[in-house]
């Protein structure tokens, strides 16, 4: 957990807290999220019971556009897209099918897409957004928090966005002032929600 700027597990039972520190460490490592998280504060009180994980992420990579991983060539009525990285091929094809229709989009081989279209602008095509990494990343983060939390805490509230996220979970109804408690946890990290 050296890569993380701030990492604390707050728990009234010391041994339990130590185990959860190790669990959080292993889970984030296993889910490849350790380099995404900048600050993480976990609060567990088995007496209430209540689990809170509040964190701040690093600056996330921006939206992936067509120009980021392809070369686009426009000739008369034919647009040729040469693909460098296949990772985003599936979402790209889906977008192109929607935009130009399946019958106009051809894929002669794995790394080439040919579109028959009139008046297509190169710059316009290059700017099409294909994939937003932050969306799935936050979902992965919340999932990882659910793996860390004690099982059986089925009542949950979660939030993510603007480089911050939190998950509150309990097996009872959540306390009414739960957001207030979460704010306090963010304050401990020197952040405001």
């Amino acid at each position: 957990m050296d890569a993380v700027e701030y990492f604390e597990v707050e728990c009234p039972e010391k041994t339990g807290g130590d185990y959860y520190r190790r669990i959080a460490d292993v889970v984030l490592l296993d889910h490849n999220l350790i380099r995404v998280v900048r600050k993480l504060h976990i609060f567990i009180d088995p007496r209430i019971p209540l689990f809170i994980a509040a964190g701040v992420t690093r600056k996330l990579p921006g939206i992936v556009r067509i120009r980021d991983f392809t070369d686009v060539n426009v000739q008369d009525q034919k647009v040729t897209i040469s693909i460098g990285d296949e990772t985003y091929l599936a979402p790209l094809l889906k977008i192109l099918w929607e935009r130009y229709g399946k019958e106009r989009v051809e894929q002669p081989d794995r790394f080439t897409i040919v579109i028959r279209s009139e008046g297509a602008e190169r710059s316009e095509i290059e700017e099409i957004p294909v994939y937003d990494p932050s969306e799935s990343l936050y979902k992965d983060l919340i999932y990882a928090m659910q793996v860390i939390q004690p099982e059986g805490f089925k009542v949950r509230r979660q939030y993510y966005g603007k480089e911050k996220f939190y998950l509150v979970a309990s097996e009872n109804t959540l306390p009414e002032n739960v957001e207030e408690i979460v704010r306090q946890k963010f304050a401990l990290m020197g952040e405001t929600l």
Partner: protein
Amino acid sequence: VNLVPVTYKGGIYRHDEIMDLIEDLGGYIIQKHVLAQEVVLQALVPKDDIPLIASIARPLTGEIVPSPLVGTEIAVVTMSLEIHHLPHASCDVAEYIRRNGAKTNMVGLARGFGKRIAQLNDEERDVINEHDLAVFLLGDFETCIQQKFPVLRRGITIPIVICGGPDKETLQKIIDPPVDGYVGNIGRFMHRTKESEELEKLDEVVSEITRVLDNKREEMAKDPPSVSPARLMDAINEQVEEIHDVLSPTPLTVQIAGLRVKLPYDTFAPVLRKLTLEGEVTVGEVADVVPSRMRDYILIRIKPFSETNIMV
């Protein structure tokens, strides 16, 4: 004869000689695994003959080691089958006990998680009670263990060994009435146990189980079962043809004072009851043949000598 549980490990070459030898000496082979070029035999052999077997096995580079868990069936009770508990720690513990010769079954509770909401249903209770011993794998917090364990142990009649995150002394303090065995510092974790101190912890689980089972065996020695379960297994193997067509890994699972037979109850219970052991003595006279809660299996519970006045 005083039969002791052992494991024999050796090459596949001429291993049938060892098997014949064990049987000729009056021992029983409980399980045989063939792994590529290697054979692992789990057997009960007469104590005095161990040096003899060892000397015959030496030219075949086979070795024989005592393994006290051979011939027992152990339930590893995990609070759920979610990613929170699997594969670590539940599988690690179950696998390690298996390596020491026991037949382990993992019992994943439907609603074992949580503090207030933890429950044990009647099917789970009955399945656990069919084993020789239950290992309960609990979580990391003593508050939770203290509240939920009384619910989870309700109706369990077999010896219990509990594993939990708090240390052994704390577990002993919070569990009332006491259970038979405790192993501390082995609660919920999410990494594979491969460091030496973690393996030592697993060794501790095995030695705790061994201690509890030894106590149980000692207790039983005062009023021994009318027939040895291994002998019963042999009789079924010889007289019931269909058992050889069963594809389960252990069609006959030996317990300390019983046997699980993986054949359908309705068809085979009458057959098993009429099976002869020695002279006129039948299985029905020395044991109860009852339906198991596990699938459609049969459970044979051997009656103690004091009940039958028969010793085969």
